[in-house]
């Protein structure tokens, strides 16, 4: 049914004389959604993927594309407004114009959440509706994004109803809105895909897997039908439940809009003789496309030049192959893939963690005054830490740290002249904590840490006294407040309370605090 529809639209498209066309795009990705939301992991990557596809395959000139990440509502509106003039100029030149607006980010209660700013969906819809382009396409990938089409009525259907359009005698004109989920559904991200489900399948479709007609062009109808089917199918078993993309279709004229043209590009060609679900991974082993095909039809996936890995689940193993995409088509046949055990999954370990590196400086202070006397004097510490978030689930993060420190102190014993000492300390540990977003930029963290501590001291003025040292493990609790002041950098302050069991001069239970300030860089 879908294939027939697509062929019909394609035939109508072919009947039209070729007209000059110019396309404009505004692509917005925003991981932050303000108070009460957790940062999205892949919203900005999704935006970059769509931007890349539209510029490479979608006929959008680089200068006509606006890619915004971490922008405010006003900045989005300004970027949209900035496209009005060139669109009007293109129309004045007699060119057909298409405006594509893509958004990936948070949304709730009918509003897109761009950091701490809000953009009502109705406002965006009205702006699109009133934009000067002949065809306006809105692609909204966010929770409850179906609200944007609610006013016009929504159908959770896999294909457009374009019967009226087919009867018309003019090229398509009007507004199409596609939302990743209905008005009461969450839009889900997938660590395995390193993307939101909807955008991943939309992107896969645009790269060629949605080309049901096999004409080397992916139309809006094909892309939607593909993204709808794959999104619903792949989210059916998730904890949040099935996610249903929806659309609003208000196109006059006839035919469909071709979103991507695959023909002149380097492609991976999946032959008709094979079937199954193929995942295409880029150099960083992240999924860039999927191909789900039945035997009998071939698929072309248009990719940028580069090296790719293709994997396919095959029973209790995997078929894996490496391919280089250049100008010529590269066939990906099953007999060119090598069978591997599931443990060799090239995606294994790729998805999930977000790593960051911290540099910190601070001090250490034992609560017991006797312990501070020479044994564990107040010390300055400088440390290097790694942190991994979204790796363990349950909003837990973990990290490893190593600190060096030391200083000078005076040992005071009853009746003995003060003895000067120098001490050196190495401390390292593993932490487990949970982050709590206080605002868009401030995050509090609470967790636990198990560390080792090694201390050594010498008595520089007393050569007859030998150096001393001590090693033990110290469990503790930690709390941290961080402020993200740029995309990758955050400033942080942290406090720790630790327990230390000391047993040389008798068994003693000691407590000490560590304070540090530092900078975190997110990879």
């Amino acid at each position, binding site marked *: 049914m879908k294939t027939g529809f697509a062929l019909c639209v394609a035939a109508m498209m072919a009947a039209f004389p070729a007209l000059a066309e110019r396309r404009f795009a505004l692509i917005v990705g925003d991981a932050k959604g303000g108070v009460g939301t957790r940062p999205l992991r892949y919203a900005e990557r999704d935006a970059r993927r769509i931007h890349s596809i539209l510029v490479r395959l979608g006929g959008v000139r680089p200068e006509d594309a606006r890619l915004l990440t971490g922008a405010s509502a006003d900045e989005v509106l300004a970027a949209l407004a900035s496209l009005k003039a060139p669109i009007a100029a293109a129309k004045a030149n007699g060119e057909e114009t298409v405006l594509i607006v893509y958004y990936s980010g948070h949304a709730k209660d009918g509003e897109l959440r761009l950091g701490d700013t809000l953009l009502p969906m109705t406002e965006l819809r009205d702006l699109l509706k009133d934009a000067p382009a002949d065809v306006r396409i809105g692609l909204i990938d966010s929770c409850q994004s179906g609200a944007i089409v609610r006013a016009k009525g929504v159908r959770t259907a896999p294909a457009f109803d374009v019967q009226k359009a087919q009867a018309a005698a003019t090229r398509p004109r009007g507004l199409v809105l596609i939302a990743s989920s209905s008005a009461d559904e969450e839009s889900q991200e997938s660590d395995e895909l390193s993307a939101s489900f909807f955008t991943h399948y939309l992107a896969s479709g645009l790269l060629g897997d949605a080309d049901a007609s096999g004409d080397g062009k992916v139309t809006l109808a094909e892309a939607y039908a593909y993204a709808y089917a794959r999104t619903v199918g792949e989210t059916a078993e998730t904890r949040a439940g099935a996610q249903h993309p929806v659309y609003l279709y208000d196109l006059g004229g006839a035919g469909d809009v071709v979103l991507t043209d695959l023909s002149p590009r380097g492609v991976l060609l999946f032959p008709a003789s094979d079937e199954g679900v193929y995942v295409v991974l880029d150099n960083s082993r992240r999924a860039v496309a999927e191909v789900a095909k039945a035997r009998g039809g071939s698929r072309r996936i248009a990719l940028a030049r580069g090296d790719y890995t293709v994997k396919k689940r095959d029973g209790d193993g995997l078929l894996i192959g490496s391919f280089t995409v250049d100008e010529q088509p590269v066939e990906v046949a099953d007999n060119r893939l090598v069978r591997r055990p599931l443990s060799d999954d090239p995606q294994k370990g790729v998805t999930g963690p977000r790593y960051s590196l911290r540099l910190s400086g601070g001090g250490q202070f034992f609560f017991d005054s006797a312990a501070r006397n*020479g044994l564990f004097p107040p010390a300055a510490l400088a440390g290097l830490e790694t942190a991994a978030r979204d790796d363990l689930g349950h909003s837990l993060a973990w990290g490893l740290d190593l600190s060096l420190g030391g200083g000078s102190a005076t040992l005071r014993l009853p009746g*003995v002249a003060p003895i000067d000492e120098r001490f050196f300390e190495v401390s390292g540990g593993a932490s487990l904590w949970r982050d709590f977003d206080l605002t868009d930029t401030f995050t509090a963290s609470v967790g636990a840490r198990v560390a080792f501590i090694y201390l050594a*001291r010498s008595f520089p003025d007393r050569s007859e006294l030998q150096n001393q*040292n001590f090693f033990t*493990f110290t469990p503790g609790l930690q709390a941290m407040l961080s402020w993200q002041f740029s995309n990758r950098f955050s400033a942080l302050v942290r406090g720790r309370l630790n327990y230390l*069991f000391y047993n*040389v*001069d008798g068994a003693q239970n000691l407590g000490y605090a560590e304070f540090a300030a530092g900078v975190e860089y997110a990879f």
Partner: protein
Amino acid sequence: MRSSALFLFVALCACGNLSNEDVAFLEAIPQKEALQVQVPNSALTAQPSCALGPAAFFQSAKQTGDDINQGVSGLLELVDTIRAQPPTARDTDSRTWGPFPDQSHPGFQTQVQMVRQVDATGTPWRWDYSISEAPPGGAFLAVVEGTFFGAQAKSGTGRITLHFERSVQLGIAKATDPKFPMRIFYDLGDDPRTISLDLTEGEGFGVPSFDYSYEGFLDGHGQFAFAVAGGNGCTTEVTTQFTAAGAGKDSFHVRCGPFVSAEAHQCWDANACLSFIDDPLAATAACNGVKPCLLGNAASCPGL
């Protein structure tokens, strides 16, 4: 159960020798340098061209002092062994080092034990220690026993008994060591610091009997007195005072029974050359047996 296991894990992993108390114990053991007799080196550099001859008594006193220092060091250097490693056993008021091999005497084992007493404020006031040696397969014998009063040996009062008779028994004594105990009393808390050696039970360090007291001042000058019992029934009591530069004066008092007594005086310069002799019995070589013997200038004697 789990918390016990965690505690055990943490306890097992707590290791090292970081200890203030260990430092306190070591501070109570005197260093051998602190108990050495400091006689100026001028005694060894006397010129052969001395007009009145060299200060022979002073020179012999220097040699005796060096022998004593060597003997004391021989036993107290065992302390250096324990300074090099942490105690084997720790208790609230005691420490034990060893047994471990005595590097200076192959096959021997050394063990050091210290016990302290603290007052009501927790301040240590008395320390008792012993250094024991054991021959291969044999029992430990205490070769050094000491008691120290105070908290820091370099500024306190104490006594040490060097059991040379036991080191002889063990076969680790030097040839010049006495064969009987030598007792050392010291007070290092004042200026002058004083060290007394009681070696009166028999011959040792090349002298037949020896009772020695030493006072050393911070500026380097000092004095020592000793009595030597001769084989002829006479006892010579010598009091020597010296400057930091090495000049000094002696007083000799010879007693031979209840009726015979004589005194002599000598002074010498920083080169250990005699500058004045007042020797009624002409025992000094420069007198050539002429009695009474009065040579040199009394004004040359240092004002000590």
